[in-house]
């Protein structure tokens, strides 16, 4: 049984920063350089070098999934992204039915780009839709053209992509239930097989945070978020999408296997500025700034910034923390007696799926999913 290693590749460039974004990404203005092509070419050189370093550390491995995230991966020429896939292929063994996901910006993606990236091995496209309502998009600092999502989906399908996913955000300041419903219905009208839906979290240091602090924007009440989540789940299920993780729904065969690798304890190597990795009980993350990242690589050094070696206690905590988010839940046999008795309390309070319980599985039902963090906290104690 050969070992498996997934790859995450981080592309830290965006044309502009959205109001809520706190990812490790840089606009040309922030980088003080306008020439994205030149920048990205040398950046990709570095990622390829890192992939080579990875193979020194890991040895031979089969790669089941690759995920290009960012930033905006689709800002780069397809050829550059193809070089990365090529590097993985030459240093490792790419699995037969490999899943290679690319995040794209619906505003700026083109048919030629999609064709090209498909031809070099990409199998899945994911795009940020967030909302179908102009005013909500404006609050989030996104484009004013919700229809571009539909167009991008159509293009992706036409290019031959079997798997297309959209991301939605609910709970933006000023978003009504009707707004959310519109967004849901729009998303479900598209020819996609996967949806992610997240509650908006206002992160410190973002433009949105500043606006909320100044009182220009007001966050909607928590309870409304609960209703929005429930509505989403209801509509998704009705349209043939099943939840497989707290924030992810898919049609049969449409689950994102790369994300599942994060939750089931599989190993992956994060390539690029600020990328996180997990291999044999060690978690580490790279230096964040693309400039520093490239400098380290050029000196032949590892781009690792920090790491932690997981103790058995850590591993147990993570197991519960991650498994509870999934539809599979946790087998009773994996819990000790005090955890099981706490779980029973949750069952009695109506937060667990009773059918699964009879199958000796701990699975959150819809109400339970709303308070998943709290339930995990109790179990982990």
């Amino acid at each position, binding site marked *: 049984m050969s070992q498996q290693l997934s790859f*995450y590749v981080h592309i830290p460039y965006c044309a502009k920063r959205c109001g809520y974004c706190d990812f490790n990404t840089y606009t040309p203005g922030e980088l003080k350089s306008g020439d994205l092509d030149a920048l990205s070419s040398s950046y990709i050189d570095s990622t390829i070098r890192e992939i080579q370093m990875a193979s020194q550390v890991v040895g031979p491995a089969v790669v089941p999934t690759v995920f290009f995230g960012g930033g905006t991966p689709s800002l780069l020429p397809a050829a550059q992204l193809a070089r990365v896939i090529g590097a993985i292929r030459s240093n490792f063994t790419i699995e037969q039915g490999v899943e290679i996901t690319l995040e794209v910006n619906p505003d700026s993606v083109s048919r030629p780009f999609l064709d090209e990236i498909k031809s070099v091995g990409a199998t899945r496209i994911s795009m940020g839709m967030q909302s179908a309502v102009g005013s909500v998009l404006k609050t989030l600092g996104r484009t004013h053209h919700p229809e571009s999502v539909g167009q991008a989906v159509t293009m992706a399908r036409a290019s031959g992509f079997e798997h297309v996913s959209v991301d939605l955000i609910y709970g933006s300041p000023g978003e009504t239930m009707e707004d959310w419903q519109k967004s849901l219905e729009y998303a479900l009208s598209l020819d996609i097989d996967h949806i*992610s839906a*997240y*509650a908006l*979290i206002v992160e410190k240091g973002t433009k949105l945070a500043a606006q909320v602090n100044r009182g220009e924007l007001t966050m909607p009440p*928590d*309870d409304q*978020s*609960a209703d929005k*989540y429930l509505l989403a789940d209801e509509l998704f299920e009705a349209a043939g999408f099943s939840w497989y993780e*707290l*924030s992810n729904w898919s049609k049969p065969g449409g689950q994102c296997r790369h*994300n599942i690798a*994060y*939750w089931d304890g599989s190993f*992956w190597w*994060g390539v690029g500025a*600020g*990328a*996180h*990795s*997990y291999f044999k009980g060690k*978690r580490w*993350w790279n230096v964040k700034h693309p400039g520093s990242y490239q400098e380290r690589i050029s000196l032949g050094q590892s781009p690792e910034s920090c790491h*932690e070696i997981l103790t058995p206690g*850590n591993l147990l*905590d*993570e197991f519960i*923390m*991650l498994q509870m*988010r999934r539809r599979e839940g946790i087998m009773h046999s994996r819990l000790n007696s005090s955890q099981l008795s706490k779980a029973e309390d949750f069952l009695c*309070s109506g937060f667990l799926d009773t059918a699964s319980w009879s199958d000796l599985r701990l699975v959150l039902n819809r109400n339970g*999913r*709303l*308070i*998943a*963090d*709290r339930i*995990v*906290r109790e179990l*982990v*104690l």
Partner: protein
Amino acid sequence: MPAIDLSKAPQPAATRPEQIRNFCIIAHIDHGKSTLADRMLGITGVVDARNMRAQYLDRMDIERERGITIKSQAVRLPWRSGLDGQEYILNMIDTPGHVDFTYEVSRSLAACEGAILLVDCAQGIEAQTLANLHLAMENDLTVIPVLNKIDLPSAQPDKFAIELSKLVGCRPEDCLRVSGKSGIGVEGLLDQIVAQIPAPKGNSEGPARALIFDSVYDTYRGVVTYVRVFDGHLSPREQIQMFSTGVKHELLDIGVISPEPVSSKGLGVGEVGYLITGVKEVRQSRVGDTVTSFHRPALEALSGYEDPKPMVFSGLFPIDGDQYPLLQDALDKLQLNDAALVYEPENSAALGFGFRCGFLGLLHMEIVRERLEREFDLTLISTAPNVVYTVTTESGQELVVTNPSEYPNGKVAQVREPLVKATILSPADYIGTIMELCQQRRGSLIGMDYLSEDRVEIRYALPLAEIVFDFFDQLKSRTRGYASLDYEPIGEAEGDLVKVDILLQGEKVDAFSSIVHREKAYSYGVMMTSKLRELIPRQQFEVPIQAAIGAKIIARETIRAIRKDVLAKCYGGDISRKRKLLEKQREGKKRMKMVGRVEVPQEAFIAALSTNSDKESGKAKK
């Protein structure tokens, strides 16, 4: 300069009473008592300039920090009078300045024949000046009025000489003028002490009787007992007996303080010094008690002894339950040197295991708390301080309630609460706001006098319960710091008092119960319920918070159930951070107290129970 070499001065047990003068200095806080005492030590040569350490006689750090004296000391000063050239022995007894320790002050006074009434002539007469003057007069002491700090630019000696002389009953020119800091007038003061204060009188042939006016625990020597001999004499290695305990002791050491302890051949009539009997607890050597000879005991004790009476109670709980044995140990150790501190174990459903402690007053309470936290490294929650109530139930049973949770549940026929007479001195400008404050606190005016054109003395009878909670702070803030306060217990009065309970989800939280006046019950209920609504996090179910008197609900708030947590995404880069958050929450959970099913964080208890005196001491620490 008439200082005498100590070795050539009259020796203890060989000093004639006519050569002795026993005096103390009484003054309001910060009027310069300790500085004056320092100066006297220097001038008499007892402490030479090199060893002079500011405020030599204050021992405890806390006292130094706060600039107050808590424990008294006694020093033997030799002095050749500038008026008659004779040698004398002056025994200076330094008295505590705070209202909480009035009993100790009174016993120090009882050991003297005279008192220096010291008034800062930049500040004028303050409440404690008056209170202590009354005490001195009650003890028939000769009072020498002295104006201090005459070297200050803001000094107004002439003005205050007039006020002071009226108070004491002398002529303005009889008020001495000194500066403890620079030494001006201090020699003359020492001469006046010799001239005005009578020599002690006693029966040197009679059975020994000595008054204990202070008792201090020392780690090396055990308890050091300070005494003034009235009759007979005490000798080294003599067998003695304490009147109140009846216990026999051997005098392991006896001597005088000059300013360090010096063993002597004994102590005779009128002399002041120390005894070491080998006892390990100050409770065995009680202030106000009489020491007599075992083999030839006196028939009657000296008058004035009282058991210390705690006035204010509070529950002290370690935040970390594991520290309970440490708290027990710490209180046991503090008790060695604190005859007034009482405590017994208390179990609170909300706060766990702790102790209900009794104190002489708020300052005493604060000092004890600070010593526990600082010297013994404990972190404590204390409940709001309460006074002692006498409750008569309908069936006629009388209960003394020191803990609100002991308050009887059934109907009560009568509740009595302790009253104090508060004496407030203030500039006349603030009469209105002071009276308003006292009325608000259920006070009744006893009287008001003008000490001068612009200074007034106001006397109110107030329930002690109204004083223990931020009365002093309010007074200071309404009068821009100019008013001063002193109070003394004046018995009990019936009050229309009720017990307000706070319930979470129907369960009483004992830590929050309080006994309040019926008219204030509603606002207390509203205040606590809304405070708790802010402090307690939302739970998975609705939490009603209620304030109740008996079964009757008088205020309520509701904490809505939380339907949704933050459902953040969790991909590769989030896992480490999320797990660490979980670990932190797990630690936080240990500090969570359960009230029924409701999780109440420790911070909520602390915030809900914090009194202004806590906030004050918090500020003081910074």
